[in-house]
């Protein structure tokens, strides 16, 4: 019985890793779609978003089954409940990645893009997502803390982007494009927040303490 339970927990873990990997792929596809104007990658991000949704439902069902049938306690219970919270953050990351890809698809290519450091934000956000999933995979508390600490950096980048865009709009540059970029930056900033949440859930699963931000 217990063996079976542990097998299920292991399975859950693997599925979570897969979902994390899907998120990473979705956001890097979206970013590439933006940076390189690749429409195919944009479509891939949308497809991955559906995959992620599917995975979320799957994992949710598994968690429910585990909770109801095995009634885990202590660290096992924390692992399952952390998993349930993590997947909703991951699902949001998927959504935002596909939103970014959608904006990128309809965006005009212009010199404005080069002037705004949205690319930096994208790289920072991808880094945070990768590290938060890594922290989960390796149960690495230090890495989780590092991810949480990096959120401020991303927030700072967002403010810089906003300021730059305000300037550009004031100069009378392409306002619509600037707004698109602002939305995109906001999405990346949100992705950073979700990565940060994932890291917090990793911390909770390991230590039993959840830090509210």
């Amino acid at each position: 019985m217990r063996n079976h339970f542990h097998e299920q927990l292991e399975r859950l873990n693997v599925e979570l890793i897969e979902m994390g990997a899907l998120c990473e792929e979705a956001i890097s596809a979206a970013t590439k779609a933006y940076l390189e104007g690749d429409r195919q990658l944009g479509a891939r991000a949308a497809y991955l978003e559906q995959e992620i949704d599917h995975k979320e439902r799957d994992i949710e069902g598994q968690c429910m089954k585990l909770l109801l049938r095995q009634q885990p306690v202590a660290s096992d219970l924390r692992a399952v409940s952390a998993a349930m919270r993590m997947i909703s953050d991951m699902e949001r990351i998927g959504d935002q990645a596909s939103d970014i890809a959608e904006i990128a698809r309809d965006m005009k290519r212009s010199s404005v893009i080069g002037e705004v450091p949205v690319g930096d934000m994208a790289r920072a956000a991808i880094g945070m997502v990768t590290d938060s999933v890594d922290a989960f995979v390796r149960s690495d508390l230090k890495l989780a803390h590092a991810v949480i600490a990096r959120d401020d950096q991303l927030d700072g980048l967002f403010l810089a982007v906003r300021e730059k865009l305000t300037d550009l709009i004031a100069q009378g540059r392409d306002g619509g494009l600037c707004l698109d970029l602002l939305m995109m930056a906001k999405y990346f900033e949100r992705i950073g927040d979700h990565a940060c949440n994932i890291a917090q859930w990793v911390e909770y699963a390991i230590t039993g303490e959840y830090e509210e931000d």
Partner: protein
Amino acid sequence: MTKKIFRNCLAVGIWVFLLSVALFMGMLYQYFSERLTTELENETALVAQGVETMGMDYLEGLRASNRITWVDKDGTVLYDNTADAATMENHADREEIREAILGSQGTARRESATLSQRTIYVAQRLEDGTVIRLAGQQHTVVRLLLSMVQPILLILVVTMALAAVLSARLSRGIIRPILELNLEHPEEHNAVYDELSPLLTRIRRQNDTIQNQIELLRQRRQEFTALTENMSEGFLLLDHKGRVLSYNTGALKLLGAQAPAEEANVFTLDRSEPFRQVVNQVLEGRRCQGHLERSGRSLQLLADPVMRGKDCAGAVLVLLDVTEKEQGEQMRREFTANVSHELKTPLTSISGMAEIMKDGLVRPEDVAGFAADIYKESQRLIRLVEDIIHLSRLDEGGDNLQKGEVALLELSRTVEQRLHPMAEQRKVTVEVTGEEQRILGISSVVEEMIYNLLDNAIKYNHPGGKATVNVSGEKDWAVVRVQDTGIGIPEEDRNRVFERFYRVDKSHSKEIGGTGLGLSIVKHAAALHNAQVELDSTPGRGTTVRLRFPK
């Protein structure tokens, strides 16, 4: 075991108690009935004496606790102190009376219907032949037991408690040495029970076997680890659930992963999509391979399932770094494309001009010009083919070329002589300076190297520029420096000029001539001599190439 011993001890205690109670009661009962019989006999004798002397009067005057019956010779009851003699039946057939009439005394015991009482009869014949009989009553064992039930129960409880305590201590005492057995070294300090010796010997033997096998396994594992650790390829062994059973550092290095936890899933090492696909496929029992990009290296992933019967029991993953191989392939592809292109260009011109001439579209006075062009192009073609042959010979390692002593300064002068006409034509002054250095090398190849370098120095120079060849010696090296005041090589091209057919300025290559293989030949020839090639250049100011030959 303690429990069993305890239960058995307790059971023995209780059984002993019950048996002794039964035995004791039996003895007691026997004793009492004998006492009663004796008493009855005495009393009967007394009563008999009394009746003998006084007759009926004695009986009537007697106040006896026992029942007294006087029976006549024929069995008729003459007197009974508990019942009316007249109503009583004939007693002649009673056992004790019969015995008394036959002998002088008789005894009999009879149980009452309820078994709760037993009556003992003692009869004695008088002088006149009549019989006096006394009857005494005795309680049976059951009654006796019932009357003693309280003390017996009390004793039982006390005995049980005592037995329980004692048997607990006993069983613990028996078990303790067994519990304290040192199973690691079963034959030392364990001389408590001789009966255990064979068992302990056997345990010791099995311990030894297990130790040996563990040691053997450890050795095997070490050998295996040593083998896999020294492979540059990555190696992963998975079980059927995708858990990592074994890995080598090569795999971690190639994947850029950290050491996985015990029994961790392989996806903790890498979770990229191509990797997941390969792993999932191989765990379904299909062999497959994939391709990964990790930190600028391209990795080939080969996966083979480990089959046990029809089920997949695990998988072996091998990671190969195929970056160089792919680059090599890429270069070969480019080379083939370049060669075909370079060969085709002069051929097209030759064929085109020949065609025009064949069709008679050329005026006779122009034929010479066309022929010159055809000649020039064919020369170019020949040079190209020669260079390619040369290069492929160098590629093969130049095994068929004999090494000998080469005088570098002398060789440089020869080269300068050969290139003199071209230098004059381009108005470039050429100078050869330095001191003689001798190295071990292949003269024709070294000459080719210097020729190619000086050729470049003249070709890519400004009119009125200067090209210098300097031969000098350093500690362990002989250095040939070819310097020019030419156009130089831009920074981004410096690493690529040694590639085959690479041209910095592709648009003017035809005017300048050359095959695009010169520096490539220099590079390969240098490798053949273990020599180093250094390139320094400032665009617009000139280029310096140093060849360092080991002395």
